[in-house]
């Protein structure tokens, strides 16, 4: 095996792959735009919807309670604190609710004025349409306003009795968050990002690996290559490093896409929810270890992919094997995706895919455990060696190299 030969093959494979539109689109273009576009489209929709729900909440009084005094009470006292609620005057509120002209009907019992004066409980009915999200939300918004109004009256009454309203709150509760980093709302990030990194690196080399062995066999370029001077090991390594490189191209593309997306519109990082990046601080040493674990993951999967591509009798068959590989990769990925940084166990750090997810979760969660990170790195290196040895053994097998 000669480094010079490895480099010649690597250089040629990169040139060849870069000129392949299929590989470029699936490894670079798609990953780069996918998440920002999906999130901006979805996030934009969610934000717009949220805005619509909370703004211009139209309500009306029921026919029976629609008097000038009632309107005054509702508009000036009950709903006055929320400028988004609009009291509409309509003759047929039921129909208006049906036609989406209003979102909620408020009905006061007929004797409300006397009862209020005498300090008796009054009854307010809210009519809304459970099947319409906006109507449902409007009922909540109005109910909240009514409750505030209710509390106001309580305070008035207690004060008029010469008492301090504070007697209503015998115990005060205060919560203090002791989580490190004073994390913001980055759950979304803690869940998605590690999963995404591991998945992308694990499957990113697939187009390249499929092309570089099964593709070469299919196009009859493999045999001439085998008759050139370099030994099989050098040819394998050149291809292996090209595939590894392409595993990271997708990750870099997606991170670049996320970064650009974040600069343009912060909500592109998460679906309209505040990304909460402010509270995150990254431990540099832990980050380096995690990156090394990720590189090892990429190499492990490059070895597996080259092996599958070599075993396959045709390009089609290679693609089929690769789809199974994607499924097999997703299982450990999903299994760890929802686990919180505080619940990570050492076993997770010893298995491919899981180890990368766990390492990044740990770092984003701000609870660094160097023992687990080193454990992950050491086991990763073992996997790299095993998979590469497997691929190399296949490259030496006549039965798989020459199938007639």
């Amino acid at each position, binding site marked *: 095996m000669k480094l010079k030969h490895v480099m010649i093959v690597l250089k040629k494979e990169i040139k060849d792959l870069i000129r392949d539109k299929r590989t470029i689109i699936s490894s670079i273009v798609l990953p780069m735009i996918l998440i920002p576009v999906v999130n901006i489209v979805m996030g934009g929709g969610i934000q717009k919807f949220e805005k619509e729900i909370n703004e211009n909440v139209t309500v009306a009084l029921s026919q029976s309670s629609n008097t000038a005094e009632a309107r005054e009470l509702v508009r000036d006292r009950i709903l006055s604190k929320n400028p988004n609620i609009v009291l509409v005057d309509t003759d047929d509120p039921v129909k208006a609710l049906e036609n989406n002209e209003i979102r909620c009907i408020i009905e006061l019992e007929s004797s409300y004025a006397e009862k209020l004066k005498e300090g008796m409980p009054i009854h307010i009915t809210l009519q809304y349409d459970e099947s319409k999200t906006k109507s449902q939300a409007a009922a909540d918004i109005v109910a909240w306003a009514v409750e505030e109004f209710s509390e106001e009256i309580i305070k008035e009454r207690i004060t008029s009795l010469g008492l301090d309203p504070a007697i209503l709150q015998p115990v005060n509760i205060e919560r203090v968050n002791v989580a490190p980093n004073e994390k913001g709302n980055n759950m979304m990030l803690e869940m998605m990002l590690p999963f995404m990194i591991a998945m992308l690196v694990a499957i990113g080399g697939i187009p390249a690996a499929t092309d570089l062995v099964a593709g070469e066999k299919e*196009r009859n*370029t493999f*045999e001439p290559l085998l008759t*050139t*001077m*370099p030994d099989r090991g050098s040819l394998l390594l050149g291809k292996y490093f090209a595939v590894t490189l392409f595993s990271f191209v997708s990750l870099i593309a997606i991170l670049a896409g996320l970064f650009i997306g974040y600069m343009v519109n912060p909500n592109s990082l998460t679906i309209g929810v505040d990304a909460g990046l402010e509270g995150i601080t990254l431990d540099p040493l832990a980050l380096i270890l995690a990156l090394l674990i990720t590189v090892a993951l990429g190499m492990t999967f490059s070895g597996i992919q080259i092996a599958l591509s070599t075993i396959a009798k045709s390009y089609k068959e290679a693609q089929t094997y690769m789809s199974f590989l994607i499924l097999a990769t997703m299982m450990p990925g999903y299994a760890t995706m929802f686990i919180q940084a505080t619940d990570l166990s050492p076993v997770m750090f010893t298995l491919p895919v899981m180890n990368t997810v766990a390492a990044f979760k740990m770092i984003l969660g701000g609870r660094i455990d160097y023992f687990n990170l080193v454990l992950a790195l050491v086991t990763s290196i073992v996997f790299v060696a095993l998979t590469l040895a497997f691929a190399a053994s296949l490259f030496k097998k006549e039965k798989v190299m020459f199938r007639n």
Partner: protein
Amino acid sequence: MERMIEVTGLVKKFGDFAAVDNVSFSVAKGEIFGLLGENGAGKTTTLRMLATMLRPTAGRAFLKGYDTQKEPEKVRAQIGILFGGETGLYDRLTVAENIAYFGELNGMSKAAIRERIRQLAQAFGMEDFINKRASRLSKGMKQKAAFARSIVHDPDIMLFDEPTSGLDVTAARDVHEFILRCKSEGKTIVFSSHSMSEVEKLCDRIGIIHRGKLVECGTVDELKKNTVTMIWKNYLSGWWVRNEAETCDDSTEKRDKGPDT
């Protein structure tokens, strides 16, 4: 005469099946040796063993004095190969890049490659498309590019495995011309075919291979004169197998000459 290829008792088994069974022959420098045999006779397997792609089950092969099993890299550096059917060019690389890649792999310097490409482009009339991607070439252009690529490192030995199979008459004639051109440059050539007329036209000596065994061997004239006419007559309808004919030497050197030197 200098023996460029020396094959003794070569055997290749796939499981229990012997695809090549105790084949021996030698080829002198500048000679064209034809391996004639029907489909499945063992021609490709034999050539693959010479090219170090397959390991022999038994026997040995020396190319330019290098043992295919002990010094496979040195052997590969001495040979150029052309397969029949597909040209095996990289579609996304230009003709020049295709040629340069094989030059680099075979240990040539960048400067030497540049000069060689210029020379080959001229020799094969490829100046117009030398910088075009292989995918955009016509069949004829691809064939020229494949010729050029196979000799970029100026190998002393050329192996052709049914290079005309699937080609039309003109393309086949181009291949024949290329083979003769290699000969005129002093290269030693092994050439496999299932076409009698093709072999007769090009080869100095012929080995007839049947079910893995080399059943006849000699110059065209020798084979024509001798008992072997039987084989010629029966070539398409069936095979006449001469059992003891398992060794085949240069026409100039007889079997009783003794062991390898």
